[in-house]
């Protein structure tokens, strides 16, 4: 069990090295001719106006929020699914009720107009 995770830990190091090392080496090899016009923020040739950090729609936050709630609940269902073969009828039904609550949640969000982009 721990040795499985050892593999993943080592893999994490290797996998960071694979894109990281070429990026670093290419930085050594490539030319360095920076100038102020070159380093301007790219906006199709126009000069940037104002701060980059413009105000965003709150809708983005609301989608992220809906996702968070769904994600947390779905993760809880995984142990239930793994144990499915050993569950009693009651166990299966309480899992189904859990999913139904999730469904009701989706319908509630739908009714509230959360899922509309416009």
């Amino acid at each position, binding site marked *: 069990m721990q040795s499985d995770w050892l593999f993943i830990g080592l893999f994490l190091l290797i996998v960071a090295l694979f894109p990281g090392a070429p990026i670093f080496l290419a930085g050594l090899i490539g030319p360095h001719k920076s100038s102020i016009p070159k380093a301007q923020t790219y906006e199709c040739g126009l000069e940037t106006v104002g701060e980059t950090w413009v105000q965003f729609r709150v809708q983005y936050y609301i989608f992220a*929020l809906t996702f*968070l*709630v769904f994600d947390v609940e779905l993760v809880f269902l995984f142990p239930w699914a793994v144990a499915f073969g050993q569950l009693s009828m009651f166990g299966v039904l309480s899992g189904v009720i859990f999913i139904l609550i999730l469904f009701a949640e989706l319908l509630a969000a739908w009714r509230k107009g959360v899922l509309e982009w416009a």
Partner: protein
Amino acid sequence: MIPLSWYLIFAAILFCIGLYGVLVRKNAIAILMGIELMLNSVNINLIAFWRYRSADGIAGQAFAIIVFAVAAAEVAVGLALIISIYRRRSSIVADDMNMMKW
């Protein structure tokens, strides 16, 4: 082998760092981050006690799962409140949120 004490001390330090953040930061979002650190240190304790004290039971894990759910709910509502306050008062400095004083 790692003794239980290491985990407990680590969790205590993390909890105190989180507490410091909650007490000291001005920004309301940063305060919530401090609360997250505190919740996580509690979770480490739960899992560590499960592993070292009652590894054949499941209570520690079930508790930790509930803590995950509560943390998610807390963040969702907390940040929504902050966004709502920001929209009304254009500020998320915790000291400015004194509407309830009067």
